[in-house]
């Protein structure tokens, strides 16, 4: 871990002098801007570690198109203004060939105007559906959209015959766009929203909002959020003795959530990528080998795996395969190759990207999972 950091500092300071020696042996440059600190560090940190891991393994096996691959990454700290400056720095000063990054929807939306104007392939790791709808020529994304998560939750609720739903969401971008999708899709699944509460992502107690929900005739609670707040909501629900079924979002699909929420997490359901239940997949499932390989490799270095790291893995692998198929780092040809990615087996599911769908994941890429005695189990 140590020498990677020194190499990055050395590489970055070299670039400060702006030396552009273009030659065959020149490394292929992958640019990344992630929220490694700040409120969304919960997502950005595993993403960075995954990108570094994949690129290090790739270089160990001779790199790409017989050229070394170099990762240049910046930490936006969750501030969209920084994201824009860093993407301009990646394009203009570092002259990267492709960008994989954008942990939060806010950062991603902020940089799209520049990416489209400069014409550089950009694979985002953020959740909101409006990153790829309407389709933008140079912009792709690997995580499932919040609309898919909402649809998956509503499907499960309908199976259980529950129609009166209470929403409780945080004040982050991920939370708000999730809430928007839940409100938009409710009529389609004949769901009735009976309560719509909100909290601050750094709040320490949500019992007030949950007491109001307890007072409503809600039959189930959906908490769309990420970080520490959903764990507090889950504990508060148990504290108030509320027994309604609780649905979380894929934002908390990680072991850390179960550790934080503790006993209160039992019975919580949420849509998640197959990564969290890799071992329980039937052997015939094509995703299983990919998931186990990534999981083993990541956990050897960094501890428990997280679905956000998985999104970064999918993003960088799609980029690498596209460059291999294009045989060069020419931006337009790499972009076209990404758009032709078919049947790519990633941690989030099977990707079939088309000119109209710059994500390529079907609803079945999401698996409904439930917390049972401290672990994730598939819900049939």
């Amino acid at each position: 871990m140590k020498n990677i950091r020194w190499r990055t500092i050395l590489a970055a300071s070299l670039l400060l002098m702006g030396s552009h020696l273009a030659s065959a042996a020149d490394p292929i440059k992958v640019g990344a801007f992630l929220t490694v600190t700040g409120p969304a560090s919960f997502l950005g940190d595993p993403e960075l570690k995954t990108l570094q891991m994949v690129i290090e393994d790739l270089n160990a096996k001779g790199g790409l198109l017989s050229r070394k691959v170099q990762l240049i990454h910046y930490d936006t700290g969750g501030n969209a203004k920084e994201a824009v400056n860093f993407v301009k720095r990646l394009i203009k000063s570092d002259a990267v060939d492709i960008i994989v990054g954008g942990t939060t929807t806010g950062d991603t939306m902020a940089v799209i105007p520049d990416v489209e104007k400069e014409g550089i392939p950009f694979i985002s790791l953020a959740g909101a559906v409006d990153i790829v709808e309407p389709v933008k020529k140079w912009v792709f994304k690997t995580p499932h959209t919040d609309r898919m998560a909402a649809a998956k939750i509503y499907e499960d609720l309908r199976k259980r015959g529950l129609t009166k739903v209470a929403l409780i969401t945080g004040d982050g971008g991920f939370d708000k766009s999730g809430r928007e999708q839940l409100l938009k899709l409710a009529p389609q699944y004949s769901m009735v929203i009976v309560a719509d509460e909100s909290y601050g992502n750094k709040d320490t107690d949500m019992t007030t909002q949950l007491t109001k929900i307890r007072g409503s005739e809600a039959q189930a609670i959906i908490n769309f959020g990420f970080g520490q707040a959903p764990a507090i909501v889950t504990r508060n629900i148990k504290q108030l003795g509320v027994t309604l079924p609780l649905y979380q979002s894929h934002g908390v699909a990680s072991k850390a959530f179960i550790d934080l929420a503790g006993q209160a997490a039992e019975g919580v359901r949420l849509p998640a990528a197959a990564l969290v239940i890799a071992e329980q997949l039937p052997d015939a499932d094509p995703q299983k080998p990919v998931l186990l390989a990534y999981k083993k490799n990541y956990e050897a270095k960094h501890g428990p795996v997280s679905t956000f790291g998985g999104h970064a893995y999918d993003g960088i692998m799609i980029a690498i395969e596209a460059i291999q198929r294009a045989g060069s780092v020419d931006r337009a040809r790499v972009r076209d190759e990404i758009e032709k990615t078919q049947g790519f087996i990633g941690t989030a599911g099977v990707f079939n990207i088309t000119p109209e769908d710059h994500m390529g994941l079907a609803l079945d890429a999401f698996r409904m999972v439930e917390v049972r005695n401290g672990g994730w189990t598939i819900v049939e």
Partner: protein
Amino acid sequence: MPEQLFQFLVTGVTVGSLYALVGLGFALIYNASDVVNFAQGEFVMLGAMTAISLVAAGWPLVLAAAVATLLTLLVGLLLERFAIEPAWGASVVATIIITIGAAIFLRGVALLLWGKDFHALPPFSGDTPIHWGSATLLPQSLWVLGGAVLLVTWVHLFLNHTLMGKALLACSFNRAAAQLVGINVKVMLRLAYGLSAGLGAIAGILIAPITFSSYEAGVMLGLKGFSAAIIGGIGNPMGAVAGGLLLGVLEALGAGFISSGYKDAIAFLFVLMVLFFEPTGLFGHKVAERV
């Protein structure tokens, strides 16, 4: 509606006691140095994170808490020795920036030591909710409330009934006069930073089971603690506790009856109203402007 109101009040008091505990640290340092230490939130975080690591390493809770408090107290002393003292005589605004720099620095250290994810301390006496009328609260909240009462009385006794405490107060009222009667003002200031760091650590440990802790936990707690100290009248420990409880109840009622999204806005709007009518806080000592 009324039984919900009771729950809102109980929630308000439990959350308010968190703010009160943090506000105490602000009041103590202000008493000795006329400066608001914006790194107070970081002391709370350091106390919690150290205790969590020690407990995770198998130490018994009480020992871990004691060691964590001492270590944070040491950090407070070092901060005063190497940051506040060398800038002796700097303007109030410059000293505020120094404490803000210290806060960022301590956050950087915590980031390196504990990484970025969230940690929790197991509750001291389980988390089976206690039912009190129609409201429920966690046993840990009783620890927090109890802790607040204990610490407030200790600070009150210390400041008003011990020689060292009175010396501390003397420094804040008139540093030159304090020096003249033989009080070593530098030691007093260092003591103040050490004590409020220790106080912050204890607060952090008491609230860790409720609020989870990360390298960034100090920011919001510091902000709410500062607000509590200001509402109560800066420098007045009792005021800080009252201010904290008031802020907590306000947030709960605001979220309960008006809109949970605008909770913080409602609370701070009230803080503004208080300041407009009581320019030196609810219980702040009114400083007569002498010409």
